[in-house]
């Protein structure tokens, strides 16, 4: 018997967590995710019907509309829904308000559908109105997440990345609305009384438009796109994977300094890239290299995590995600090439910009998201339907909820389609883009089919009595 305590061997005692610390109901994240899938299907269908959008230069209303369908409808929907589920679990805390999240879903749905439609008909005034509805939703999302982060008992690299992503997402929306404001025309306010709020509002919008007119329109659009693509999506992919990849491969972060370094450099690179893209500065290349360096450190740490894993088999969900990481290599190469000082804008380099955007959104971000969806959706469905029956009935395993064959088929068709569409976009081939996007659509269809199979368990659960598990089936004599 010994009462000796070695203080060097014990960590400071965190307060024991009370019961009731949990995540929102499964229907909320699932609603976001199903919305996202519908938007992805609609976006890919649009490109199949109008491959010219990808085979010609991207500065036109249709490309902007379909891009926002992918970015807001597909990626943001899934990412936001996943964050409501994952952030409380990964950071060991509780979502601040599920009610706010439900309101955000409504604003998000109305906002992004209206924006995409109004971009398509190029009514920038209405884009601004629907964009404001979306921004209201984003504001609720950021506030909800920020209050959730305040409850985090112990900050780590994932929490920092989530906080940074929230900042960049707010900045992205602000920049986007400013661009929309700059593209509107304003009537004279002289007839309005100074005390009226409308006059103040219009004068404010006009001064924002005046400020934005200092910048090149395409530069502002590209800077806005990088804020969202790198600041929100990539930041989250990098930060959250530091928690999820060790969780699903049974490993641990191998170097906290390396992980923190990648997040810091990504933020530095993005800050510089935003400013230099906006100002069309030759320093763009330097900050692109900082961003690429951040991703290289991320890849280094991820490889170390995978080498140390206890679970040797990588399932399709992880394979999808790691493919996204591999696709960062060609994407980074394109980023450096397109940042090269003095690079002329001609037919080929213009198409390379299309490839860069498509590879970034439909390649890197979508592969990462689909990989995580194949982890999150089965768990949400399983948890929502079967967790109460554990120990009381024989519940199916997560793998029983979907088809691994469909996962594999979807993976290869999606990847082949991505390669074909990127190649065809680079060569301005409409037929190639149609074939490539058709293949990607097939990949999306397999995902939808698998998700549908999972969701059937919500309505028709398939538990079996425990006796089937424990009693051997008697053999006929």
């Amino acid at each position, binding site marked *: 018997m010994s009462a000796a*305590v070695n203080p060097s061997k014990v*960590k400071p005692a965190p307060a*024991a967590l009370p019961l009731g610390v949990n995540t929102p109901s499964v229907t909320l994240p699932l609603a976001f995710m199903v919305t996202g899938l519908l938007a992805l299907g609609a976006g890919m269908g649009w490109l199949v019907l109008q491959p010219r959008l990808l085979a010609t230069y991207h500065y036109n209303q249709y490309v902007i509309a379909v891009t926002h369908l992918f970015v807001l409808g597909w990626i943001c929907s899934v990412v936001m829904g996943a964050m409501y589920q994952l952030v409380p679990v990964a950071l060991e805390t509780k979502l601040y308000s599920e009610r706010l999240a439900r309101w955000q879903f409504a604003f998000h749905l109305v906002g992004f559908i209206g924006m995409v439609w109004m971009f398509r008909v190029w009514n920038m005034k209405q884009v601004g109105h629907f964009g404001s509805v979306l921004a209201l939703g984003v504001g609720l999302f950021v506030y909800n997440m920020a209050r959730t982060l305040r409850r985090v008992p112990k900050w780590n690299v994932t929490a920092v990345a989530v906080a940074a992503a929230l900042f960049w997402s707010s900045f992205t929306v602000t920049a986007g609305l400013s661009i929309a404001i700059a593209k509107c025309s304003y009537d004279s306010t002289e007839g309005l009384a100074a005390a009226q709020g409308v006059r103040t509002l219009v004068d404010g919008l006009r001064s924002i438009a005046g400020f934005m007119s200092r910048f090149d329109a395409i530069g502002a659009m590209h800077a806005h796109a990088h804020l969202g693509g790198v600041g929100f999506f990539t930041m989250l992919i990098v930060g959250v994977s530091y928690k999820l990849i060790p969780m*699903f491969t049974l490993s641990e972060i191998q170097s906290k300094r390396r992980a923190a370094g990648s997040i810091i450099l990504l933020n530095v690179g993005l800050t510089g890239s935003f400013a230099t893209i906006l100002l069309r500065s030759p320093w763009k290349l330097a900050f692109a290299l900082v961003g690429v360096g951040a991703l290289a450190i991320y890849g280094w740490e991820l490889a170390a995590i995978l080498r140390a894993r206890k679970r040797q088999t990588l399932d399709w969900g992880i394979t999808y995600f790691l493919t996204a990481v591999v696709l960062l290599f060609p994407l980074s190469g394109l980023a450096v090439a397109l940042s090269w000082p003095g690079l002329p804008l001609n037919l080929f380099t213009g198409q390379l910009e299309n490839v860069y955007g498509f590879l970034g959104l439909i390649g890197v971000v979508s592969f990462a998201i689909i990989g995580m969806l194949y982890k999150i959706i089965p768990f949400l469905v399983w948890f929502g339907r079967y967790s109460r029956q*554990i*120990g009381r009935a024989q519940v199916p395993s997560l793998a029983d909820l979907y088809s691994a064959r469909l996962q594999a088929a979807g993976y290869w068709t999606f990847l082949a389609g991505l390669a074909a569409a990127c190649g065809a976009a680079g060569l301005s081939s409409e037929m190639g883009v149609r074939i490539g996007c058709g293949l990607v659509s097939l990949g999306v269809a397999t995902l939808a089919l698998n998700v549908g199979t999972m969701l059937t368990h919500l309505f028709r659960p398939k538990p079996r009595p425990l006796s089937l598990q424990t009693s051997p089936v008697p053999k006929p004599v």
Partner: protein
Amino acid sequence: MNKTVTVDVREDIRHGREPFSKIMNAAAALQKHEQLLVIAPFEPVPLFRVLEKQGFRHTSRSVAAGEWEVRVTRQSNASPPDAAPSGASPGSCRDSGLAPMKMVEVDARGLEPPQPLIKILETLAELSDGGQLNARTDRRPMHLYPQLEERGFTAETLEQPDGSFLTHVRRR
């Protein structure tokens, strides 16, 4: 207090051994000027009722992750062992009218989600009425808490020095 008798039950619990009688025997042997120091991986709340019924008072505090100190002394009006009636066994659980506390250990480390949840809840389903459960996991079991609440259990989770988590589960 002149003397402190220390009983460290962390190893017992880790190996699935029942530490109740060990603690109660040590408490029974306490003199008026002595105190008993129990070191446990969680706050042994069920023990407190038994100690109070047998004339002991206690204080408890968390000193580190997964380490609790409980200091036990005799109440001033309680009799030391030499004054106890012949044949009585103050350390025996039966004297208090309570069944011995059965502690079940579940090691759910090294499992991919949601296997830890399944393993813990399946073990819990077979737990006897007075039984308690200690579950070790790689991560704080956030999805376990609502399930425990729904099944009438309460739990406390403490991070361990090796980065794992120990969750102590008992009935409400």
